[in-house]
């Protein structure tokens, strides 16, 4: 089976944009909602390209261009995008006008820019890419579903390169609406963030390659025995045992209900393995596991786990070669992604 290599990544997030400075010098936040550190998009996008775009689309285009540039890919075979809520600012704009001002004299642009697939199709339009183009929107496993689509197509030899994107933005009204439900409340330094990341994937290692993705699995509402069995199968079909793993990255975010699922599951599934996190730096949103994937890839590329990512300080900081990214969506969808530094 063909393997998949992560060739590049470019993010705009709560951490310094387009940079891996968070590895050694992370920005630390207080408060439960953080906006991304935006670039001056005028330096990146021509006025005519950007004039109808909201911040999510501007971020998406810059991340996509940068990821392709870094990977030296001009035309990917596939563009696959994950988003939980899509261009929610535009959705909100249209919905608000329709509700408050009635159903006449509405502007077409916010509607047109509100559909989820505007993201990937704007990227395709930007580079005139006629290849495969799809979008996944499955709550907190949106990115995992998009990744699995890419992975399957690499395995089947359908594609040699892919651009994988994960995007969610904050917006004033929807943020306040989400505040009504428990899963968007965070403590202990957790916060709601925004996602914007593009990664170039390929079937051959290059000098730029960050790491290799071995395999993954997603399952819906598994019982613990099913989850154990699926993990076992995942490791076995890749010739690995639990002892080959150096760490498990989990999506703890400061919400007790969310975090307890991770702690309970990892205790059974990965006893004695160091646990690491990423949402304390980047926050929580539906597609944040895309950032988690990038964090793991960066750690594998650099062969180290910075101490600030580790959940327990006594864990040994040794050279890391193989990591599992474990993600769940409200304890319904569970996904495990296996990455290594093999080339």
């Amino acid at each position, binding site marked *: 089976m063909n393997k998949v290599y992560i060739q590049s990544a470019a993010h705009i997030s709560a951490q310094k944009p387009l940079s891996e400075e968070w590895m050694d010098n992370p920005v630390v936040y207080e408060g439960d909602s953080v906006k991304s550190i935006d670039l001056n998009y005028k330096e990146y996008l021509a006025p005519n390209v950007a004039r109808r775009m909201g911040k999510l689309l501007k971020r998406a285009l810059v991340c996509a261009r940068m990821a392709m540039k870094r990977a030296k890919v001009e035309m990917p075979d596939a563009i696959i995008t994950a988003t939980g809520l899509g261009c929610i600012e535009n959705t909100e704009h249209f919905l608000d006008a*329709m*509700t408050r001002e009635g159903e006449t004299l509405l502007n077409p642009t916010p509607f047109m820019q509100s559909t989820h*697939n505007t993201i990937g199709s704007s990227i395709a339009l930007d580079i005139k890419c006629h290849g495969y*183009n799809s979008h996944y929107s499955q709550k907190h496993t949106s990115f995992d579903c998009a990744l699995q689509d890419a992975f399957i197509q690499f395995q089947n030899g359908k594609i040699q390169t892919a651009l994988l994107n994960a995007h969610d933005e904050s917006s004033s009204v929807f943020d306040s*609406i989400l505040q009504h439900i428990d899963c968007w409340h965070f403590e202990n330094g957790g916060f709601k963030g925004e996602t914007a990341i593009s990664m170039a994937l390929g079937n051959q290692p290059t000098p730029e390659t960050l790491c290799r993705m071995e395999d993954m699995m997603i399952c819906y509402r598994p019982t613990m025995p*099913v989850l154990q069995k699926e993990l076992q199968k995942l490791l076995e079909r890749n010739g690995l045992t639990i002892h080959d793993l150096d760490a498990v990255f989990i999506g703890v975010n400061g919400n007790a209900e969310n975090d307890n699922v991770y702690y309970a599951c990892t205790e059974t599934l990965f006893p004695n393995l160091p646990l690491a996190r990423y949402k304390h730096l980047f926050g929580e949103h539906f597609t944040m596991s895309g950032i988690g994937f990038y964090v793991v890839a960066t750690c594998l590329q650099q062969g180290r786990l910075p101490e600030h990512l580790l959940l327990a300080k006594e864990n040994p900081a040794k050279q890391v070669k193989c990591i599992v990214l474990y993600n769940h969506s409200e304890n319904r969808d569970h996904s495990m992604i296996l990455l290594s530094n093999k080339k």
Partner: protein
Amino acid sequence: MGQRIVVSGIGIVSALGLGKESTFRALCEGKSGISSIQYLQTEHAHFPVGEVKLSNAEMMDMLGIKSDTPHTRTSLMGMIAAQEALEDAHISQNERIALANGITVGGMDKTEQYYLDFLSNHSCDEYIAIHDCGACSEMIADHFGELFNQLQTISTACSSAANAIMAGAMLIKNGRADMVLAGGTECITKFHLNGFNTLMILDNEPCKPFDANRHGINLGEGAAYVVLETKEHFLTRNAELILAGSQQKLKPLAVLSGYANTCDAFHQTASSPDGEGAYRAMKQALETAHLQPSDIDYINAHGTGTNNNDNSESAAISRVFGDKIPAVSSTKGFTGHATSAAGGLETVISILALQHNFMPPNLNFSTKPDDLPFTPLTAGRQASPPLQHVLSNSFGFGGNNTSLLFSKYGDDE
């Protein structure tokens, strides 16, 4: 060529009614489901639409769901169509199946209804967490207990369901699922009706796909799914059911022989004049099926009734098929344009066409534009020789174009 993916069950709910029988009957009788707005609360009551002729309360009653359970119209229609497809494929409760579901605006019907409540009080908070597309798929899956062991929601506007069917086939081919329930669901919302209205592409009269005097779409709604599995898996399952004495020897309903997803990459909402994306989708679907254009007997076109789509699609059809264009019809005049669900509805219609050897008409077509390279079927027609291969097109905003190819399951297979 790899494993053959077969369709072992279909389920549908649309303006044409509930279930495959009433759908097929309406197609045969040439009876459109498009009528004036009955259920949607809107200021634009003059637009004809293809509504499912059931209130949410009636659907909940049918499904045995308590009336105070938070729900969305999209998920209710999805449950009804899913139930039919699962029963049609004889899926038992102890089997495990994946769901690949196409949705675009998800729970928007409730969000637009309770938006001001969300902002000012807590009376409708239970609807917030079911606004997004993924939540709709979860509600559908959970209605069937433990049956579903994998979920994915695909959102590519009007090609969502077609892409879900393609994604389902890829999951099976890669060994990541034995069976997939694939398709899509979407209800009419004020959000969509007004959105399309701002683009000035809603027809005030029944839509006339490909006609010289067409003025746009009629919005529709519905849900439709197919059960996909490999031929071997189907035969093994069928053999086990025969052994258990609960079933006779069955044949798959059709083969999903080809599929392709491409991007027009031309404009945010408009399709290219030469139909590049559509051309590539049809061409690549033929390639994955190892078929020639001349093998196609019938095309169920995307044919929305907008000037732009129908021009672009017919240009693409002409490029693929040259001067030997097979029979073409758009069934949007029956169902309306059910956006995310459209590819599901038209997949089921294409499979019904193959099963019954019947090509449904392109309703409301009377004047052929000078540059249209074909004349769509103006009356339903039995195919002779029998239909072997049917192409179904689904194109979405942003140029997300997908073509699916369904073939008859041979008697000698």
